[in-house]
């Protein structure tokens, strides 16, 4: 090319060269947040829809504020998982927010629940606690905060359906021994401490056995004030 070519021509040539270079390197790697989050999918399943491994929760479609709180909690040690801590340790709040927004925005079908692993009596006790709570124990219904359909409420209350029993039990246990803590006041920590292990087991068994309704989006509105003050709920 003539060194004295028109500046516009030179610009176009430079642009074409840059495009050619870009296509030679990394053409198949989309510059998206989804591609960036590929490491998460190994445990949380394709697009965060969960796998058949019981200890890893579905993250797709959870409220963004909930997911963001959890990512911060792993970084700050209010939740304890060495893999999660290792991944988020050197991430800024802004990136964690983008990650939370990405998974929250995914609307994917749910697989049918696995068969219940409990007796009818246990499942009945579980359902009662979920729908009505236990006044004597000072335990509100799960539905009072997590919604009548139990699919959560905006901005920060997660769905409790579509989660494996093992994962639910692990969370209840973590709250009981203090290795999972929500922002103060930790309403879930209080509720879990008021329930006997068998009650928690029944609740987890019943929740895990329920199908997820077709519209599983978190509710936009829920009756407030909540039965217990929760630090994660900004209202």
């Amino acid at each position, binding site marked *: 090319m003539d060194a004295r070519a028109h500046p516009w021509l030179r610009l176009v040539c430079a642009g074409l060269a840059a495009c050619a270079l870009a296509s030679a*390197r*990394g*053409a*198949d*790697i989309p*510059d998206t*947040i989804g*591609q*960036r*989050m*590929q*490491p998460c*999918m*190994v*445990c949380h399943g394709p697009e965060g829809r969960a796998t058949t491994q019981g200890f890893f929760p579905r993250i797709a479609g959870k409220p963004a504020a909930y997911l963001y709180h959890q990512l911060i909690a792993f*970084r*700050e*040690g*209010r939740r304890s998982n060495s*893999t999660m*801590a*290792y*991944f988020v*340790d*050197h*991430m*800024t709040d*802004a*990136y964690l927010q*983008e990650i939370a927004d990405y998974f929250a925005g995914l609307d994917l079908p749910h697989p049918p629940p696995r068969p219940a692993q409990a007796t009818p009596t246990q499942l009945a006790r579980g359902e009662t606690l979920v729908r009505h709570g236990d006044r004597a124990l000072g335990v509100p219904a799960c539905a009072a905060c997590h919604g009548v359909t139990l699919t959560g409420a905006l901005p920060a209350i997660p769905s409790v359906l579509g989660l494996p029993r093992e994962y639910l039990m692990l969370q209840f246990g973590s709250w009981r021994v203090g290795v999972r803590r929500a922002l103060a006041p930790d309403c879930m920590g209080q509720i879990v401490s008021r329930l006997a292990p068998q009650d928690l087991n029944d609740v987890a068994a019943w929740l895990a056995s329920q199908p997820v309704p077709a519209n599983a989006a978190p509710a936009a509105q829920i009756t407030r004030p909540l039965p217990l003050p929760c630090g994660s709920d900004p209202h």
Partner: protein
Amino acid sequence: MRAVARFAIVLLALLLIAGTLVWWLNVRGEEPIDASQAEPAATPEQVQRGAYLARVGNCSACHTERGGAPYAGGKGIPTPFGTVYASNLTPDLKTGIGSWDAAHFWRAMHHGRSKDGRLLYPAFPYQSFTLITRADSDALHAFLRSQAPVAQPNRPHELRFPYHLQAALAVWRALFFAPRTFERQANQADAWNRGAYLVRGLGHCDACHAPRNIFGATRAAIELSGGLIADQHWYAPSLADGGEAGVTDWPLDDVVQLMGRGRSPRGSAMGPMAEVVFRSTQHWTDADLRAMAIYLQSLPHRAPTPPAARQATPEALELGQRLYAHECARCHGERGEGQGPYPALVNHRTVTMGPHTNLVRVILNGGFPPTTAGNARPFGMPSLLLGDNEVAAIASYVRSAWGHQAPAVTALEVRDLR
């Protein structure tokens, strides 16, 4: 009988001399601290300068607990001798350094001795910090004093016998520590001198990048020649070896990018180095990053050690090749050529260097480079949920493919790194 008595007297005298010597070696060069003298108030410039220096020295890496108040201490530092707990550096009067004068702080930084006279454990890297200037020490002190006081008592160290004894520490210090002053090399440029001051002083790079002897002391004779990080299962590669992490033949800009953004055309900061970049070096001024790079490029360059040829079995290599095609090629390319944000593995030093620790750790744990202003949305590597045999096969394959000649990795070695 007289012989025994004479022997006892001689022994006692020798002990006394040795004790005196150890005592003298521990306090040599210290000036008395005059507590009656009021200190001049810190200037805003000093506080600002101290805030920058605290990041350069990465004080928060140890002195801030996960989720804890900044600089309030409490984090456990694992060492081969037990766990040392970082202390509270906030200006709380009872539990922090609220009662410390700048002179006390200087004694800690330069001499490794606390305000109450106790000898400090060298997990606090005063072997390096001893080189910083009094002005920098005073600025750090001024910055820490400007923080909000946090009442958080220091947690006692959990060290095994005899390491928990001050006497043992005194002997260690007599053998391995002497307060030093940074000496400018007149025949070197200002930037080189600044880089040397940062790397060897406040940056305390040798805390990880230098080998340690069985007493846990860094061996200064072989500067920054690489070392295993105690109890972390990561290897801090040699900065004086072109086959490891030496940068003599790197463009200066690549070094600056790696330290300033956590990512460079030649690789990313992962593992403990991701933390260093995230908390410390990404906040360095461009001039300081360049000074560091200039100094690192000048380190005596040693030819890469030819690795011992340890071959994997043909079966292992075949398994490794198959797994590579299935697990790795989509991002790193069929022939390890890399794609877009995913680094090439051909001639990547984490793949080819003698010690296999970091390669295995990255295959086992994956990870993200740090989020920095220059790389705000990093791509990451998944943890490959594979068995020891499979990980060893992949590692051995990439260490022998594409013209590489690094020794194979065994399943047992992988298991040791989990």
